[in-house]
């Protein structure tokens, strides 16, 4: 078990190294363009470009350039943005992380609980009105674009019904750090959480239902029934446990991607200064150092989330353990 974990961690570090090389090459070794000019941004002075070329070692070999870049990203952390004169990039990304992490983690709790409920209830009451109703609701949840749902939520909670008992507690848009006020953090995030989770409850609920129904045609479910176990026990201990693997796989990918910036739309709609929003603005300004930092940060999160998922596999399914 421990060996599996260690092997997986080593693998993860290897993949992260590969990604950093790839990202570096895409950004700085694309033929036919001058990386120094791109880092300097639009309408930069020739002296600035020249300074950047020396600073980043673009006049030296590629491995040296890579080493300099990684040193500035991870060791000295003094990569600076030239579009926003002299602003340090790494602190900017690190400042954005808590908002994104709070948003995604909260939404993830909601969507895991919600989709487990939807999937299990729908599968248990298969082909009844309850099942059909839940599936239609899920489909509606999947179909609603998150930016639209977010704006509707804002319209209702910030404007139309803000003065009623229903939404009078909702604070203005924006993120409240957890360290500042736990209650404020919670209130500021409840509606973004729900908005982001709705889509995933729909997707995960439907997939879980399909997996459970497939599990119910397996021989071991018949064995469990022949043993005289209660339907609840058969569902939770026999069918659900074996149906969780695809669920966990998807969760790892989605969670990693969302923390890595895919929650952009939700962050923009609710004015949360997270990683997605940071990337969004950097892209608008062609702020290359920020884009580089967020891309590497995002890919690392996806890789890490997948490593965690692989370890969870071993917990869920003994056949994976070796």
């Amino acid at each position: 078990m421990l060996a599996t974990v260690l092997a997986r961690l080593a693998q993860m570090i290897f993949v992260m190294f590969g990604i950093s090389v790839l990202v570096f090459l895409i950004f700085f070794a694309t033929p036919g363009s001058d990386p120094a000019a791109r880092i300097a941004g639009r309408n930069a002075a020739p002296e600035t470009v020249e300074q950047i070329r020396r600073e980043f070692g673009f006049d030296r070999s590629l491995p040296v350039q890579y080493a300099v870049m990684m040193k500035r990203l991870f060791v000295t952390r003094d990569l600076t943005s030239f579009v926003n004169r002299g602003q340090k990039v790494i602190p900017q990304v690190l400042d954005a992380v808590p908002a994104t992490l709070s948003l995604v983690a909260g939404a993830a709790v909601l969507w895991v609980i919600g989709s487990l409920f939807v999937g299990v209830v729908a599968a248990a009451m298969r082909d009844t009105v309850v099942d059909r109703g839940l599936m239609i609701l899920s489909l509606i949840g999947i179909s609603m674009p998150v930016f639209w749902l977010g704006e509707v939520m804002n319209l209702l909670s910030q404007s139309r019904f803000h003065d009623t008992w229903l939404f009078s507690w909702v604070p203005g848009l924006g993120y409240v750090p957890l360290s500042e006020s736990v209650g404020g953090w919670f209130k500021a995030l409840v509606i973004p959480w729900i908005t982001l989770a709705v889509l995933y409850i729909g997707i995960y609920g439907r997939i879980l239902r399909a997996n459970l129904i497939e599990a119910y045609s397996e021989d071991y479910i018949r064995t469990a029934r022949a043993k005289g176990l209660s339907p609840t026990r058969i569902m939770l201990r026999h069918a659900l446990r074996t149906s969780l693997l695809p669920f966990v796989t998807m969760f790892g990918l989605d969670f990693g991607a969302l923390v890595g910036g895919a929650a952009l739309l939700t962050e923009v709609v609710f004015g949360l200064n997270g990683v997605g929003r940071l990337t969004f603005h950097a892209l608008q300004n062609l702020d290359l150092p920020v884009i580089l930092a967020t891309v590497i940060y995002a890919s690392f999160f996806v890789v890490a989330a997948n490593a965690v998922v692989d370890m969870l596999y071993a917990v869920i399914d003994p056949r994976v353990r070796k």
Partner: protein
Amino acid sequence: MTLLDVNDLRVSFASERGPLTVVHDVSFTVGTGEVLGIVGESGSGKTVSLLSVLGLLDKRVTTVTGQVSFRDQSLLDLPDREMRKIRGRDIALISQDPMTALTPVHTIGAQIAEQIRAHEDVSRKAVRARAVELLRDVRIPAPEQALDRFPHELSGGMRQRVAIAMALSCNPALVVADEPTTALDTTVQAQVLDLLRALRQSHGSSVVLITHDMGVVAEMADRVAVMYAGRVVETGPVADVFNDPWHPYTWGLLASIPPLTGPRQGRLYSIPGMPPAPGTALPGCAYAARCPSAMPICQTPPPEQGDGAHRALCFLDAGQRAKARPKAGALA
């Protein structure tokens, strides 16, 4: 004494073209301590009949009618909650394929224990001791360690032993074994059959043994029911049916066993043709199309002939049978 009495059992599945009857008016009984062999080819309705008795068919798509009484209690009308108490405790099931019959994510110890705990209020420690005992009964080496193994860590034969141990865990009065040896190697088959026979003695359970192998029936069963296209076409004590089979289908089944004595045959006999598709409504005998001694009258429902416990659904009488039945080896 009769333990299980099944009368006029009829099972139909809902299909797009309306209900599809796959088991027609099946009746059989199982006495206390008796082994009933049910034989027939795939799709003859032998598994479906027994699953319907156990209430294990999907209720939304199947209709089961008839009378099933177990210890004078009618099973088909029992509410789910009551049926659950009987399943696993009084009637146990051993599935065909041991590779898929156990839940892959739980240890075999946990799977045996949960069955015992579903029916009896016993402490964890006592359950574990009993599970060890059961595994020892089915001759699994090092039973204490085996309890903490997962199904994928065991071979097919070992898994079938575990399935048997699980079935016997509550000392059921009746064990339904659905082709328990079909998925196993020949050498392991013999071991599992030996084991079943020994355990029947020690645990005193009656057994319904579903199989397509006449050899297994000859070795294990007291009585046999031959099923064809959803009907019991012949039934009786094993010795009677093997010495003097009445139904031409039984002749065919017996002729397809290679003889152990006498000259070596060229090709082994196989019954020509295919069984009718389920749901084909035939007024007469379903076997007529493949029967070597079919007569025009076979297009009408065949009568049940009987002599004591030996019964068959066929028009042929004793004299006609003697003439019509091919001599052993002549079919080859």
